[in-house]
């Protein structure tokens, strides 16, 4: 069905670039129209009514007019700003990572409502975690997330891979297809799409310690509300992130710049 001349949609702002005197070109993701590019004229002026709605990682209700090259934002009202997330460096970087992953993963005008909902749910979880962390920052790790915030990002990584059709295999060896044993010397190969057993270790691109494997299996097979609090050491967190980033970078055809900044 062709897009009408003027249409309404809620959207999440993934990206913006300054254009001309006071305009911004936005990359928006919407539930019904997928990823779209639009221009918000005059939105960099302090007095602009659009300014707060077109800020990054903001959910807003938009009225858009279809244009020849870019749609034009005619009205916008903020729905959610995720204010707590913006106040913590780790959480704000995680917000950037969610936006960048969606921008890389989605093609223009191809709706993917499940991914839209996943992104919003993740931002809400990060916002709640930032609120809790700002109220009581962990003295040992002042720039870090709580275990819930960290888990929210790993849940996002795994569900995003699943929804894009790249679900990594953590129960059987991707080479010989035998069930994986609970041992320390399994490996992981992003190009083959999952774990490899010790017998197929020649295909392993990185080690997959047992605790890392258990965490990945747990997050992959558990609903968010049932996911237990995981108190993990930094090494295991790094291992889990490393495995997921290797497979995300491969499938999104580039490593996520926001994630690199965090490390």
């Amino acid at each position, binding site marked *: 069905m062709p897009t009408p001349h003027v249409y309404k949609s809620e959207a999440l702002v993934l990206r913006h670039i300054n254009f001309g005197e006071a305009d911004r070109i936005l990359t928006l993701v919407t539930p019904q129209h997928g990823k779209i590019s639009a221009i918000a004229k005059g939105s960099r002026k*302090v007095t602009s*009514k659009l300014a*707060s709605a077109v*800020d990054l990682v903001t959910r807003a209700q938009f009225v858009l007019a279809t244009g020849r090259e870019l749609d034009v934002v005619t009205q916008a009202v903020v729905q959610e700003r995720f204010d707590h997330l913006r106040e913590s460096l780790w959480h*704000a970087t995680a917000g950037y990572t969610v936006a960048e992953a969606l921008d890389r993963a989605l093609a223009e005008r191809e709706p993917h409502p499940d991914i839209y909902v996943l992104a919003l749910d993740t931002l809400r979880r990060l916002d709640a975690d930032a609120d809790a962390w700002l109220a009581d920052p962990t003295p040992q790790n002042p720039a870090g997330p709580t275990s819930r915030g960290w888990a929210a990002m790993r849940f996002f990584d795994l569900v995003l891979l699943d929804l894009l059709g790249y679900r990594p295999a953590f129960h059987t060896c991707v080479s010989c297809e035998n069930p994986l044993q609970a041992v320390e010397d399994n490996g992981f190969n992003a190009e083959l799409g999952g774990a490899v057993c010790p017998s197929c270790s020649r295909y392993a691109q990185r080690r997959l310690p047992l605790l890392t494997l258990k965490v990945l299996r747990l997050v992959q097979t558990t609903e968010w509300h049932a996911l237990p609090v995981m108190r993990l050491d930094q090494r295991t967190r790094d291992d889990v992130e490393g495995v997921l980033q290797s497979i995300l970078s491969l499938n999104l055809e580039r490593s996520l710049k*926001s994630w690199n900044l965090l490390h």
Partner: protein
Amino acid sequence: MQTTAAAVTALIEEFAKLPGIGPKTAQRLTFFLLRSPADQTRRLADAIIRMKEQVITCSTCFNITETDPCPICASPQRDHGLICVVEEPLDVLAIEKTDTFRGVYHVLNGALSPMEGIGPKDLRIAELVARVQHSSGEVREVILATNPNYEGDYTAAYIAPLLRPLNVTLTRLARGLPLGGDLEYADEGTLSRALEGRRAFEG
């Protein structure tokens, strides 16, 4: 066959490279200059060349200037214990126009933007930390006057933990309603910040 003089075509092409100027505007500007008095055109050309040859970056605040240190950093009338951190030299102009700020500046040359690959090394953040560190306690307050948007907040959130151990007061610019506007047209975010930051009325 070339129908337009080569010098005219060259100028049109140069104008068209400027931001916000398309081929039609480039043509209009070129033909305006063609019809202008020679001395006016010469003044424009001289101003462009002088700007490129004489403008440098102040080694203290990284604002654009013709002298190093810039007049603001060199002035004994300014309060050197109060540093206002801004993203761009244009922000310095905007604050100077208010004629109310008597401190000095630090220009970052942008804001952190991980998605665009702009990291801390691309900005003058290390120089800011060194400036505060080497001030021997002279710097009392740093105003993080980055833009009130996601990138600006993010940049402030990155800088704050680096400066906090140096025993300086960190502040952000207040957020609220623009002067002369109607309340009913203010967006919810601005209005809620304005309510949070309300002040006692001394009328």
